[in-house]
């Protein structure tokens, strides 16, 4: 074996080890969360998913998460509704219309935005935006709309840059062909290139949604914190992540309450896992 071969083998070994550490960490995390949530799942059972009453510290305790699950889903859905079109518009502009200077400016703005700590975004919304909302008619200073705005701000960089990537990955010849056929610049980009990039765009969508559903600090600070099923944009919500963050610090390790918080984590992990699988499938069907 010559020196080059040895080097190659070492590199290969290192990469394998690192990859396996990653896989084991992921599996370990899954096992840990499932393991910790088993007591709640077996002892509380279906009540977790059917009851809207979350009273873990009362006697007798009740562990209903329905309102919080629905709150999480509504908030995620609404934030996605705000951020995805906006992300697409930015991506589309960057791809088709922006000159190099504009591209640099927008790109670096997006990069900068993705670096702002979420706690800063939360404070900003609470201190400056919330009073404006109160003047506009909000009855609660923390509410669904405010949280959705926060989530949109922090997930916009993901949506925009992922979408722009998938648009750019489409072969230029397609666009050129469309333009040669007499299609306008907008039609070529919006109807033809975007259609070809659809799997990538859907993938970006799912990753963005994934990012939104797991976000914690902003919802903890500005979502209002009442575990009710919201009926209007001004209503407060209490998503699962906020509950975990708010209560995990105080529970006795190993108690049913502790386990129930892990069940909340398991629900989030399951949603995220399903979304990721979905995104893999979409990517694969797009490339084949």
């Amino acid at each position, binding site marked *: 074996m010559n020196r080059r071969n040895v080097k190659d083998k070492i590199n290969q070994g290192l990469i394998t080890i690192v990859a396996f550490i990653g896989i084991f960490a992921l599996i370990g995390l899954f096992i840990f969360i499932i393991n910790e949530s088993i007591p709640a799942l077996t002892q509380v059972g279906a009540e977790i998913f059917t009851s*809207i009453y979350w009273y873990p510290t*009362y006697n007798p305790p009740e562990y209903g998460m329905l309102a919080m699950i629905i709150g999480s889903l509504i908030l995620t859905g609404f934030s996605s509704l705000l951020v995805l079109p906006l992300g697409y518009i930015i991506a589309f502009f960057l791809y088709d219309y922006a000159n190099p200077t504009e591209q640099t400016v927008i790109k670096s703005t997006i990069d900068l935005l993705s670096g702002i700590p979420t706690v800063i975004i939360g404070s900003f919304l609470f201190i400056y935006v919330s009073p404006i909302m*109160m003047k506009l008619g909000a*009855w609660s200073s923390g509410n669904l709309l405010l949280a959705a705005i926060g989530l949109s701000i922090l997930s916009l960089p993901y949506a925009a840059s992922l979408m722009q990537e998938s648009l750019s990955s489409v072969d230029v010849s397609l666009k050129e062909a469309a333009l040669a056929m007499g299609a306008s610049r907008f039609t070529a980009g919006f109807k033809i290139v975007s259609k070809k990039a659809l799997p990538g765009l859907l993938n970006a969508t799912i990753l963005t949604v994934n990012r939104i559903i797991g976000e914690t600090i902003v919802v903890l600070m500005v979502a209002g914190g009442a575990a009710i099923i919201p009926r209007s944009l001004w209503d407060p919500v209490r998503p699962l992540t906020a509950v975990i963050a708010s*209560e995990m610090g105080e529970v006795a390790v190993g108690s049913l309450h502790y386990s129930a918080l892990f069940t909340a984590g398991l629900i989030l992990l399951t949603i995220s896992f399903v979304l990721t699988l979905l995104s893999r499938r979409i990517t694969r069907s797009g490339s084949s």
Partner: protein
Amino acid sequence: MKKTILTLALLGLLVFSFAETLVIKGSNTIFPVTQLWIEEMKTMYPDLTITLEGAGSSTGISALFNGTTDIANSSRWLKAEEIKQMGQEGKYFIPIVLGYDGIAIIVNPELPIDNISLENLAAIYTGKITRWNQLDPNLPNERIVVYSRNSASGTYETFVEKVLKGERMAPTVQLLESTQAEITSVARNKYAIAYTGIGYVTNDVKVLTVNGIQPTKINILNSVYPISRPLFMFVDATNGYPETGKVKQFITFGLSKRGQELVEQAGYIAAYGF
């Protein structure tokens, strides 16, 4: 050379093993008080090392049972089963009152209300009353925006126990993560109500009298004000009151003039020397 290092290492070990460590666990409510005390005491007794952990009153008391703490901070009295356990294990814990905590009911200064009864307060927090004019026809016909601390807070525990008498807080109550967030929210919202430790109240909000009683120092100290409670340190006195040593040093400092000033600085009411 080697010998010197060895001697030094041994000497270091000796000093380290003689350094006293005082372990304090328990109530998060008392945590800030204890922290202020420790900071001040470090300048007085440089060789005294103190570890402080806020894990809840119950955790502190159970740690006192299994001997993993020297002092258990507790924002509540002993439970019946804890007293029973003391008898079974032949142990004797003594309470030392370090201060008092009163919970102020706050509303927006623009709301024309000055007093609230304990029953009405409970009705608001359990969701039986949802509009201000249900309380008093002269008040605006607006939804009451109810704020509370999250369930991890000691103030929350006291509130549930003293006001709701164990009844459940309505799901519509908004749980906030900090007292500051409560005060800001009430200051901003004309129809909001919240409760905070008496020491945190600012001029941005209005404090209500409860059952006509002002949450003044004297009223809280005598527990005339309905939402007040004493704060305790529990100490294991199975072998008699600790007359010397680190526990005694700590208690003495806490009850001293300076220690009691720090209780007030942390936002509570000093138990002694007012």
